[in-house]
């Protein structure tokens, strides 16, 4: 299911959730540990083409998030669309950033992967100070806002809408950053089609201090609506639970959907035609 190359971040944090995967620790030492993160784009060099405003290629659709009594729940499907084709069906669109923060993204998958690499270096550089204080979800949210805004200023955006959730010192945080730097924080958040289809459901049914069970059911309800109505969504989802103690991303699973309707069984029954 997962991308064959095992990433350091995936191993360290997801293991805490008690998954069945191998808990083998693999130390990867490379340039990433050499210092603080560096910007992506290099200075324009003569003769080298300048990349301006892009178009996205492989994209992910909505990401949903909500706060519940124990922390934050974030969910997304695992589809990577290539225009109107569902090209990849096992894409990780959510990644643990640290052991109390999770990042989910819609939009260009390669840009999301670049962002997770950047955050990896950031978290390591921060941990190396070993000063008893680590970056929390709010800090990372602010950092990502600056990253996205600065790329927008250079007319070279990272084509994502990010959802950042986590808990630190008992304070739960759930926020969003768009590709042009628009950012906000709320009790329930959605990106893309989720703004139109999921948020209204959340506004009606979200309440303070929902249990894990209630929160998961609410997310699944919204994801089901998205599966029915968003053509880039697939019925293979992951739900992530972020608490103060750790991040746990579920294995992908399907929702129960209903297709046994008359109109589907015999679509041409009432269609006019000469044959």
């Amino acid at each position: 299911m997962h991308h064959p190359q095992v990433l350091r971040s995936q191993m360290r944090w997801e293991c805490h959730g008690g998954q069945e995967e191998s808990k083998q620790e693999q130390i990867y030492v490379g340039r990433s540990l050499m210092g603080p993160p560096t910007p992506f784009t290099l200075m324009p060099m003569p003769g080298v083409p300048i990349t301006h405003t892009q178009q996205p290629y492989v994209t992910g659709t909505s990401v949903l998030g909500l706060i519940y009594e124990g922390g934050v729940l974030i969910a997304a499907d695992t589809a990577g669309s290539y225009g109107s084709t569902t090209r990849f069906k096992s894409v990780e669109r959510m990644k643990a950033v640290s052991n109390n923060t999770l990042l989910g993204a819609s939009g260009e998958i390669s840009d999301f992967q670049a962002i997770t690499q950047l955050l990896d270096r950031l978290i390591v550089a921060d941990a190396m100070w070993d000063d008893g204080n680590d970056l929390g979800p709010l800090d990372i949210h602010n950092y990502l806002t600056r990253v996205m805004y600065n790329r927008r200023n250079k007319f070279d955006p990272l084509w994502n809408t990010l959802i950042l959730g986590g808990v630190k010192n008992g304070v739960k945080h759930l926020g969003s950053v768009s590709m042009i730097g628009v950012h906000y924080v709320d009790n329930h958040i959605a990106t893309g089609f989720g703004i139109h289809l999921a948020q209204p459901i959340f506004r009606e049914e979200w309440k303070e201090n929902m249990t894990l069970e209630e929160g998961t059911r609410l997310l699944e309800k919204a994801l089901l609506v998205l599966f029915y109505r968003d053509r880039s969504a697939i019925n293979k989802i992951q739900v992530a639970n972020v608490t103060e103690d750790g991040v746990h991303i579920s294995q992908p699973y399907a929702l129960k959907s209903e297709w046994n309707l008359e109109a589907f069984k015999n679509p041409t029954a009432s269609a006019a035609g000469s044959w």
Partner: protein
Amino acid sequence: MRSWKLAKMSMVFAPRLAESAPTSHVGASWSPYDNNGGTCVAIAGADYCVIAADTRMSTGFSILTRDYSKIHHITEKCVLASSGFQADVRSLQKNLDARHQIYQHQHSKQMSCPAMAQLLSNTLYYKRFFPYYSFNVLGGLDNEGKGCVYTYDAVGSYERSGYSSQGSGQTLIMPVLDNQLKSASPLVLPPRESSTPLTESEAVDLIKDTFASAAERDIYTGDGVEIVIINKEGIRRETMALKRD
């Protein structure tokens, strides 16, 4: 070797030379701007200033959140309310904060409201050719303790006045404020104060009425209004719910 030196020189002295390289322009679909809506109002009194803004943040025909503050305390006696493109607004607020911190280190005191007004104008004009899409109203107490309101366009043109509104509901609110607050011409004798003759609580009530009215017809204004009142006692904050449709 020579061409390498030339390349280095071109980067230092004329970095724009790099743009003669082929660029890839893919369609015209992306805009660096968005309008996240919202309305800001401020009213200055003889010894107070009231600044208010709604709390709705939108994009296109969707509401992103109903509880986002457009009001920013920059100095002890000065409050900035801004609507427009939220990412630019936030960046502008941080920019002014940083400049204010430096000012405090250098002068061992806070910036006055008129000084901040000039700084804001200069900051906006600095990005005259890639503007902050931010419609600002600055309110506070001037050096004599009288209420002052400064109103701006997106590129820094500004003016001190007794009252102002900016943002998506500006055209709905401004005529109401003119009707209630507009003072006689400055040429009138005996000379009349330019600030509002209203009391502080009357000004707050007027603000509430204007926002309730704007929320009826402007789709980007609604959910709630945040009202900040500055007087010699300090700064206090009130909120009022608005229609959520």
